[in-house]
């Protein structure tokens, strides 16, 4: 019964705290949207942040070059060996910070603590990409283990302002996929038009208010004005997309599952399923995703790892302090962290499997997607060397299958510049970059 599926989809996908289950959907015949249209595939970017310290005993391959020995933490990625590289010893130099605030500047490179008592920031690399890779239904998606700003999100806009992250699968699904059936499309377009009128009227008022303000107050108001302008622009883009229709698939198969599970693995897997779906259907081309916080959450996997490693029960934060800097590979806390890194690698491998299985016009979706996967600490609180993996993007000119290690004076911004350049963004530099990392390119 058409009507009831419609209701349940809309009703069911809304909400807080619960997860959704994506069945194995046969979408677009296993091809990207561009492939179905016979067009060239656009580039995509997804950045995943590893919170806390990595387990350094398991993370670093013991040798470098193309014939490097795969490290324990990266074992789940073995079959994708030629599709990713391990990058060691990049870091922010001007932007070196310490403690638990790395999510603020991992992708921006800005020294947020330059002025004590305040946090200033600049645009994040993903948002530079988003400026050039659209337009799509969503210009970008900031995802996280929970909803929020500050350390929950990795993305900052052109003014350095936090872009709130979504931690909830249902909210994400609803935002990603506008209605597809005709009656709903009409209603959605009418709503878009109404929203534009509402904003337009409000904007006139805000502008006349701005005229009366002092310089600092103007700065504050400009964030709002800029955002309204951005939304108006998005509404115009949205209208076009609604008019053209979007890729369709059977959404009645999307089901709800009760909340209350506390598995990070499941959370990440479902998020990456949605990322793959979003890339395939071309609803967005840029994603950031924070894989957890610095002080938790204390998800269930930790219990298993602790049991297996013979470590005492602790909070996630404490495992990192105890294990993140233990030189002894047999230290039980260190083993727990390495298990966590393995899980992250497995999640990445799973996403790579999915992307590799989706056919693009030329090669696979993975070949058109850059996956940045890393964190800021190889030691608790340290920001002196960033553990980093880079995967995918063969058709964008990347050459993988190597462990590259620099001398500690190479800025992470060079990598960001390299990524942006290969994505086709017309930028000459990013933050403190000196040039592209040609070692990574074919």
């Amino acid at each position, binding site marked *: 019964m058409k009507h009831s599926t419609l209701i349940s989809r809309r*009703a069911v996908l*809304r909400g807080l705290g619960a997860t959704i289950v994506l069945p194995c959907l046969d979408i677009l015949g296993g091809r990207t949207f561009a492939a179905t249209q016979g067009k060239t595939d656009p580039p995509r970017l997804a950045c995943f942040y590893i919170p806390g310290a990595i387990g350094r005993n398991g993370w670093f391959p013991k040798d470098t070059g193309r014939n490097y020995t795969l490290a324990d933490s990266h074992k789940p990625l073995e079959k994708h060996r030629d599709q990713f590289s391990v990058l060691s010893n990049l870091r922010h130099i001007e932007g070196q910070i310490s403690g638990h605030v790395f999510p603020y500047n991992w992708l921006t490179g800005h020294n947020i603590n330059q*002025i*004590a008592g305040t946090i200033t920031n600049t645009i994040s690399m993903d948002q530079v990409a988003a400026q050039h890779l659209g337009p799509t239904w969503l210009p970008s998606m900031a995802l996280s283990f929970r909803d929020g700003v500050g350390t929950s999100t990795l993305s900052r806009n052109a003014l350095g302002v936090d872009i709130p992250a979504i931690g909830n699968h249902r909210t994400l699904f609803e935002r990603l996929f506008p209605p597809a059936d005709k009656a709903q499309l009409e209603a959605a377009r009418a709503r878009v038009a*109404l929203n534009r009128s*509402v904003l337009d009227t409000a904007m006139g008022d805000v502008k006349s208010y701005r005229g009366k303000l002092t310089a600092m107050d103007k700065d*504050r108001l400009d964030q709002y004005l800029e955002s309204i302008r951005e939304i108006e622009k998005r509404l115009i883009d949205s209208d076009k997309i609604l008019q053209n229709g979007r890729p369709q698939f059977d959404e009645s198969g999307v089901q*709800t599952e009760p909340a209350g599970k506390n598995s990070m693995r499941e959370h990440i897997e479902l998020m990456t399923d949605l990322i793959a779906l979003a890339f395939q259907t071309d609803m967005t081309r840029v994603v950031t995703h924070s894989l957890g916080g610095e002080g938790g959450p204390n998800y269930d996997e930790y219990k298993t790892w602790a049991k297996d490693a013979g470590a005492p029960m602790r909070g996630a934060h404490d495992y990192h*302090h105890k294990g993140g800097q233990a030189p002894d590979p047999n230290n039980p806390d260190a083993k727990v962290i390495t298990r966590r890194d393995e899980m992250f690698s497995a999640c990445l491998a799973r996403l790579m499997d999915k992307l590799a299985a989706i056919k693009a016009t030329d090669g696979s979706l993975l070949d058109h997607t850059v996956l940045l996967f890393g964190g800021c600490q190889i030691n608790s609180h340290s920001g002196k060397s960033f553990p980093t993996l880079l995967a995918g993007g063969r058709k964008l000119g990347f050459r993988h299958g190597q462990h590259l290690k620099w001398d500690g004076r190479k800025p992470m911004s060079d990598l960001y510049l390299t990524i942006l350049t290969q994505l086709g963004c017309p930028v000459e530099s990013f933050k403190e970059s000196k040039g592209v990392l040609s070692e990574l390119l074919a």
Partner: protein
Amino acid sequence: MSVVRVSVCVCILFASGIVFAEESGDTFLRDVQPMLSRYCFGCHGESKQTSGVRFDQLKQYRPQESPLWTKVHEAVSSGEMPPQDKPQPTAAQKAQLLNWIAARQREAAGTIRRLNRRETSAALRDLTGLSVQFADGLPGDGRVGGFDTGADGLQDAADSVAALMTVTRRAVDGIRFLEPSSGAIYQTILRASADPKKALDGWKAKGARAEPRGPMQKGKGLLMEPQWVGDRDSTDFILPVPPQGKGILRVTIDVSLYKPMPGLPNPKLWVSVSGKDIDHREITADFENPQVLTYEVQLEDLAIEARGVRVSISNRIEIPYSIDGFENEETNRPDEVVPGGTGWYRPKFDRKLPPEQKPAPYIVLQRVSIKMGYRTAWPTAPWKAGLAEITDSDASAKQLLSLWGQRAWRRPVSEKEQERFFALYQKLRGQRLSFDEALRAAFQSMLMSSGFRYLASPGDSDKTIAQHAIASRLSFMLWGAPPDSELLQLAAEGKLREPAVLDAQVDRLLADPRSDGFVRPFVLQWLEMEQPITIASTSLKKQDFRFARNLKDSMREETLAYIARLFVENKPARELIASDWTMMNDALAIHYGYKGVEGGLLRPIKLRADDPRGGGVLGHAGIQSMLTWMGSNWVIYRGAWTLRHILDDAPPPPPLEVPELNASEGSNKGKPFRELLKQHQEDVNCSVCHRKMDPMGFAFQNFDISGRWREVEHESYQMADLDGKIEWRGIGAERPVDAVGRLPRGEAFKSYEECKQLIIRHYLPDVMRGLLKNLVVYGTGRLPDVHDLALIKRILEQHESDGYPLRDVLKSLVRSEIFLGR
């Protein structure tokens, strides 16, 4: 006495920096940079950034960097910087720098800020008359100095504004003018029903289901049986989902209490909708005068199951008890002394007994009414007075727009300002939208405008705007909500700068129950209480989590209620630190070992003279249990917290690469914690801050991990997981608690009590300065700059002789230029 310490320096000084004159609005390059370069770059420049402070990249004064300049001003004017053993600037040079800072801070400061998430939600509730938690649809806010009201933290990205757009849409969609509320209604008056069960069965005809739990009694209603920990059943009402799953769900219930016998505790009513907790409250009303409770929930905020929207109501007992003739089920733990018996569970009784013989309190559900797609008629009753009847006419539209505008913008709105919105209304009518639909869109547009979104400055040159800005500042500070009619009236009369009027308003707002909207967010953020509270009682095993939650909540409420009373009853500042009373309810009384405190409501309780913790915030279980972590590093956390939040002597951030103090690594194994800390303090990187933090933290060693008093401590502690319940265990030898330490200026103490007395004798001005600085951030949205600090000093001097009574100090702040000036 220096106020904020930037750092203690060990520096190598080398003057550097070739100065290029740059065109800029201020005289930074001419007057300031050369001096910084000469005296400061050595430790705060390119090669070294002691305490994370760096000057060499600054090229001009920027308002965002104002907090840095405040610190510079304090450090230089107090003589702390440059350090004594380094070259010193001349008095004239110093004066030039200090004057430059003061002048720049006055000229370049921002004065407006947007409403934060909490305030936006409250304002939308106030405007629409709906009790929906609109905040659930909005992103969180950045913090300044720990507060969600800080202007610089209240940013706007496009995604945040898109969320605001959605939420304001929901708010206006919740009101109606000419059109009726059209959603489905499910209703049964159980107490008046000849056959209550049958009446509920009748819901099936409308596609809904009622699943009552407990016996029905004719003339009364549904007797909801108590649930104990582990019980899952609740009385559920399952309703079909409206199209799109959107709109407001409104639930109204009449409930009363029925106790079959004396000695029973009051039960708590829990209400949730589709798994989301909406309310929990103690039920005390008798049958004749039931509590009438109404909840409004936005369906978009819910996780809705395939079965439908589920409204769950339950009766939960969150306190252990037993009464004569019915012993407690739990007899294994005679060491746990609980009033009326032992253990944590319910009394033993035969489940088959009729209700009037069961030793259990019932909640009687007398009426239930649920509406889907609810819309409230607007304007609500209090704002309707003097309004002509609404018709489908331009005149009505104008009148409603004007009223909405005044309320939404919290000030009079001129005809000219309204034109724009009326034009939108007319345009939409032309597109065949109904009166209601077109007006709702115009209303929403007003909500997206600056008048709603921004709080103006009390220093605005337009007197009307300035007066209304004071009204808003007062009400958002002391109620967390927009100003009411009385405040708006006083603003319109231009009276909100008169000291007597302001004093009377502070009294009025504080005395109103809405002042919870001040105390709760202010205290939670001031004392950084939004961290998980650890409870590690070995007695709270598998099934006690609900009791523990009740206890955790109560622990937090103790501190909130305690500080609320200090303000409302104008208590002197010393009672923040020490007193002979605290706020307690039944759960806290068990925790603290007091008898005869019944019910969940917190009330002032006089403490026993021999209670070693005494009164005062530092001894609250919620505070001390919050400041625990694994192992025994509590000393550091507790010390740092006390310096930062109570003594206004916040340690600077740790240096970039901090080694971990790891008690179980290598040579540290087996050493007492005090010895490790000493080692720590000798390390030159750590000593700067730890010399103060560690000795301060020892004052609280008598508080165990659940915030209870202890006389002995274990060598170490470990966390264990028992059937999903976390337990902390003391390991190794016991020893008497060592609470010997020092306050930051060196006063030595041998016990917690001595420490408190020393704080009262020597640190009350510091405590109050800290409190005032926090009130300034919270109330005005800016970190106090040098002008504010000078005024704070004056307020402190003024109250030195009367012992800083809290409400009077707050009044002095409100009357000052800090609050009224900008």
